[in-house]
C-alpha cells in the first residue's frame, strides 16, 4: 500500500509547527499505524533527518501512551481501539492521512505528536485515591460488594488515561476521564468514605487546569478506546451535587 502522510511537525513547545508531507510506499495492511510510522522513521533516520516523535509503549492498547488525531478522529477512524491497535487495513490504498497531536490548552505540544498530559495526573493527584495506609486494610472479604456494582466499577476503572476524550471533545473537556475514576470509587463501599471530598477536589482541579466543560455531545464516548460511557458523567454530576 502507498500513503501520503500529512504530519504535524513542531520542534519543541516554543517553536511554530506546520504540516509536512511524506510519501510512504510498501506499507503492509497488517502493520499497525505506529508500525507504519516506525517504517517512516526508519526511512527518515537513514536519510539523517529528524524522525517524527510520538509516544507509544505497550503497543497492546493498555498503557495509554499512544494517541494521535488521525483524519479527524482521536486514535483514528475505528471505534474502541487505541492507535497502536489501528491496523493499516482500515485505510484505502493511496489515501492521504492527516496526523495531528491532541489539541487542548492543558495539553501543550512537546514535540511533533507528543503532548504533555501531566494535567491528567494532576487531577488524579487531587483526589483519585482511597486514603488507606499500607497495612491498615481489613480482611478483603470482610466487606461484601454487590457483584453488579463491582462489575460496573470495573467498567469505569478500565480508563487508560490516554486523553482521547479531551482530544475529541469540542470543548477539550476532561469530564469523561474524571467521571471514570469518580464512578469507580463511588460504586464501591471502599471509595464511598471520601466520595464528597474526592469529587470536589477532582472537579476543581480539572477546572483550574483549563479543561472545558461538558455539553453532552458524546464525542468522548464515541472515541474512547475503552468505551467508557456518558452515564459515568451523569454519575459524576450526581456525586458533585451530592457533595454540597
Amino acid at each position: 500500500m502507498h500513503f501520503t502522510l500529512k504530519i504535524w511537525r513542531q520542534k519543541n513547545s516554543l517553536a511554530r509547527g506546520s504540516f509536512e508531507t511524506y510519501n510512504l510506499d510498501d506499507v503492509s495492511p497488517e502493520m499497525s499505524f505506529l508500525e507504519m510510522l516506525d517504517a517512516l522513521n526508519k526511512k527518515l533516520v537513514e536519510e539523517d533527518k529528524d524522525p517524527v516523535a510520538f509516544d507509544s509503549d505497550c503497543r497492546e492498547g493498555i498503557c495509554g501512551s499512544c494517541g494521535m488525531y488521525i483524519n479527524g478522529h482521536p486514535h483514528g477512524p475505528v471505534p474502541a481501539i487505541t492507535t497502536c491497535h489501528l491496523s493499516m487495513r482500515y485505510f484505502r490504498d493511496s489515501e492521504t492521512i492527516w496526523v495531528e497531536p491532541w489539541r487542548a490548552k492543558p495539553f501543550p505540544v512537546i514535540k511533533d505528536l507528543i503532548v504533555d498530559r501531566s494535567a491528567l495526573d494532576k487531577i488524579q493527584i487531587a483526589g483519585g485515591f482511597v486514603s488507606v495506609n499500607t497495612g491498615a486494610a481489613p480482611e478483603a472479604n470482610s466487606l461484601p460488594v454487590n457483584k453488579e456494582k463491582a462489575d460496573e466499577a470495573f467498567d469505569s476503572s478500565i480508563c487508560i488515561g490516554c486523553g482521547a476524550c479531551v482530544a475529541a471533545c469540542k470543548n477539550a473537556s476532561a469530564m469523561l476521564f474524571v467521571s471514570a475514576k469518580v464512578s469507580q470509587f463511588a460504586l464501591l463501599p471502599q471509595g464511598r468514605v471520601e466520595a464528597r471530598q474526592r469529587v470536589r477536589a477532582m472537579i476543581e482541579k480539572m477546572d483550574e487546569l483549563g479543561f472545558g466543560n461538558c455539553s453532552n455531545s458524546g464525542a468522548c464516548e464515541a472515541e474512547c478506546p475503552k468505551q467508557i460511557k456518558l452515564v459515568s458523567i451523569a454519575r459524576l454530576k450526581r456525586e458533585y451535587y451530592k457533595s454540597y
Partner: protein
Amino acid sequence: MALAGLFLLLFLPVHLAINLLLLKSDPEPFNKAAGFMANFPVIKVIEILLFAALLIHISYGFYIQIKNWLARPVGYAIATKSDTSPFSKFMIWTGSSILLFLILHFFNFFFIRLGLVEGNPEDFYSVAHNLFKIPLYNYIYLTCFILLGLHLYHAFSSAFQTLGLNHRIWTPVVKTVALLYSVVLPGGFAFIAITIWLFR
C-alpha cells in the same frame, strides 16, 4: 444552565397555548389572555423568575462557551468526524439566533407594553396578525423556530444528563419526549404563523 433551561422549557407550552387563540377569528380571547398574563400578580412573579432564568441561561451560556473555546487555543486542521450529536455543536449559534429573535420579538410586543415602543398594548391580536402578513417577518419567524427546535432537541435531554439524571430506562424515554417536544412546540408556533399568513 440546565436548571434555567428546563425552567424556560416550561414557559413555551403556555405561550403556545395562548398563541393558539390567535387562530380564532375573534380577537377577544387572545387579548384577554394576553392581558391576564400582563397583569395577574402571580404571573408577574413568574415573569420575573422567567427573566432571571433567561438572563442566567444566556450569560452563563456565553461564559461557558468562551471558556470552552479557550480550552482549545489551537484547533485541528481536519474538523472532527466523531460520531456525535450534531445539534450540540451548534448550541451557541442556535441559541444566539434565538436571542436575536427574542430581541425582535420584544420590540414587537413586550416593549409596547412597557411603552418603549409605539403601539396598542390592548390589542396584541391585531399586532400579531399584521406581523404575520409580512412575508419577511414570516421567513425570520419560521427560521427561528426551526433553530429553536434544534436547540431544544439537544437541550432537553442534555439538561437531564447535566443534572445527573441518567437512567437505564428513563433516559431513552426522555430522549423520545425531547424529540416530540422539539417538533411539536416549534411546529405549533410555525403552524399558527403559516395559517395566519396564508389563510387569513
